[in-house]
């Protein structure tokens, strides 16, 4: 559903994404893990069509992003780490506009907007200005917008940041139900417990390259780690914990 072939993104001499290939199948939740600055956000922004790749190919729902950008984007729901929302619109207006961008208009839009607001527990805020929303409410609104047009694939950057336990639970449930309905989800996260709990497969990216991919058990085996927690596997693969000097400094 989301197929990335030999993707490269260079910023001058710096290579942010280096010959990266990835395939997220329909119904799969794919965790995209890596340390800060590894190239996760750049990859997701390339998939969303916000950055021009230096080379490589991105295909969403069978549509090449470079050749058929509109068809590819229409199949995708993108949830960025720092989303833009029109602060002076109400939640309802924002969703109606977002629906219009994806070709949902006329009679169908109001019902769909209400469905999404109900799902993300925002219905009572429909006519309130977004500027008065808390961070968690804004996050849920952005998710409502991303799911509004029934995308076949989702690219989501750090979905759990700033959410309370109830909000996080809600998002996890929504992602699971979406994946049961065949939606492919590519999710970048730092929260390894979330990846462990939700993802069918994970890829660990470092310095723009995928250094390990497979199920959580596959990756654990690759790292030669028998522990229960993904954290130790992650630290082993991405190069040590860096904790040894803390005592000296403290």
């Amino acid at each position, binding site marked *: 559903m989301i197929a990335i072939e030999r993707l490269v993104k260079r910023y001058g001499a710096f290579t942010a994404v280096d010959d990266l290939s990835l395939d997220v199948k329909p119904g799969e939740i794919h965790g995209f893990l890596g340390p800060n600055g590894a190239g996760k956000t750049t990859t997701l922004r390339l998939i969303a069509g*916000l*950055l021009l790749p230096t080379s490589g190919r991105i295909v969403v729902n069978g549509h090449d992003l470079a050749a058929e950008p*509109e068809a*590819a984007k229409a199949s995708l729901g993108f949830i960025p780490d720092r989303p833009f929302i029109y602060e002076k*619109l109400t939640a309802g207006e924002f969703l109606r*506009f977002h629906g219009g961008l994806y*070709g949902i208009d006329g009679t169908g839009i109001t019902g769909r907007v209400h469905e999404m607001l109900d799902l993300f527990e925002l219905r009572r805020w429909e006519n309130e200005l977004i500027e008065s929303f808390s961070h968690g409410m804004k996050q849920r609104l952005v998710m409502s917008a991303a799911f509004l047009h029934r995308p076949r694939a989702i690219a989501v950057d750090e979905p759990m940041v700033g959410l309370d336990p109830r909000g996080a639970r809600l998002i996890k449930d929504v992602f699971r139900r979406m994946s049961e309905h065949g939606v492919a989800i590519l999710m970048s996260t730092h929260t390894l417990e979330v990846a462990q709990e939700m993802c069918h497969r994970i890829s660990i990216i470092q310095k723009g390259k995928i250094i390990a991919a497979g199920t959580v058990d596959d990756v654990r085996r690759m790292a030669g780690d028998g522990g229960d927690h993904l954290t130790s596997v992650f630290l082993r693969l991405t190069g040590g914990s860096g904790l040894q000097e803390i005592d000296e400094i403290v």
Partner: protein
Amino acid sequence: MTQPFPFLLLPHIWSSRNRARRRQKGDLLRAGMFGGVGLVVCAALFAGAYWLTTKLAVYEEFGDYLLRLGLSWLFLTFLAFLAFSGVVTALSTFFLSDDLRLLMGAPVAAGRLFMARFTRTVGQASWMVIIFMAPILLGVGIASCAPLVYYFTAVLAVVPFVVIPVAIGAAMTLLLVNVLPARRARDLLMLASLMFAAAIVLTLRFIQPERLMRVENLPDITDFFATLQSPIAPLLPSFWAGEVLFAGLQGAGDLLHGTALWTTALAFTVVLAAADRRWHFAGYSRSQEAPKARVTSLRIVDWLAHALPLSTVRRQLLVKDVKVFLRDVSQWLQLLPLFALVLLYLYNFSALDLERIPYMSGVIKNVYALVNLGMAGFVVATVAVRFVFPAVSAEGAAFWLVRTSPISMRDFLWSKFWTGLVPMVLFVEVLTIVANEFMGVDPFLKVIAAVAVVFMTFAMVGLAVGLGARYPRFGADPNQVAGSYGGVAFMILAVLYIIVMIVLLGWPSAMWLFSRVRNVRLSALREAMMAASFLLAIVLSISTWLVAMRSGVRALDDMNR
């Protein structure tokens, strides 16, 4: 997306409607003040255009000729402004605007996105020109008793006229964003501002309007206007618009130039749309790339701060403020147009040849010393509202650092005051002294103005810092902070203060000058009243400064309670 492109403009329309429905504290005051100032300016432009047109009408054919050239020149001036404004606005609307993150990720056809962005660019870049142009054209029309067709012609000519330069500006931005290394948008802005400033000064140098003041040059005035009509002028849209309008004044139509305007505007739009389809995404992608920002260490700031007798806390606050300001190019860049205007202002003083009106020159010169003082005051108020008033708000999300540190709010706010004061005093002092020198103002007034401007700067910087602390808007853009309730309140108080100061200084100065010119001795009572007037100006300045600062410190202290 299936809707036509105006759908993409809906969020801005809805946002404006929501803003109007849910007014905040001070919105009406702000709208009243800006609207009032706008109305006064429009009325002045209308009156000026009306007066000039009626005067020119006396000279029949020669007057018509001058009016025709005047219209062409008016449009030429706006043409340059629109092209510059197009560059800057297109940079924001096509490449840096936050909502592009949403729109570029949505399945919106490139052509639709272009049309929506271009419409917004034309609107944003030209609304001010249209607001200024409308009363001028109305004044010309009414003074010429123009038929109704003139007003229709005006609308039909102005629309394509604004599209052409904005399209050129947008094309320039598209080219530069694709050519310059990534994330050099701010450098681009700097380049554009410098070009604009240089263009203003050069245009003035070439035109030399001071020649109009020289009576013996009168026979050459036709030559002077002819120089405005350079060989390339007939190829410019400004000339076409001028011709169309002039024909409209006579009740006729100028199909040739009207068609030229519309076909050029449409052709430029089509060509720009094609170029946008080809290069916009590449440019947008580049504009987001910021792997490494260039950092200048600005060691001289550290060195200077260490040379000053300051406590560690104050020194670090000073170093932080100065470095943050200097590294944010978009901040100090906004000073460049102001500097260009000041240059123009000084240039005008140097060009005025008042000796040719001997019976008036003495009075005018000395009146100008006070006008100059008022102007310097307005410059201080304008710079202060934009750069000093937002000083506390600019701490933004990082203000917790100051609030949780063992720094008193008094130290913090006074550091803001001195950082704003020193460059401001130097700037206006030089401005005042140079302008008065150019004018040949009486030495007594020179001294008064030079001293008064220091007091005025203390008062207005103190007022800006104090009110900025009383009405902070943390996290808002500095431009928004300047236009907030507190910013508008500052401007109103600053203007009132300037007017009172001019009265308090002007009356005793005028008394003294007249007594000297007429060789009349002033009575002791009058001298005492003059001294009291000067003293009152000093007391007013010092109390404005200290009361505002104290109020600001108290507001910051209350924040912690």
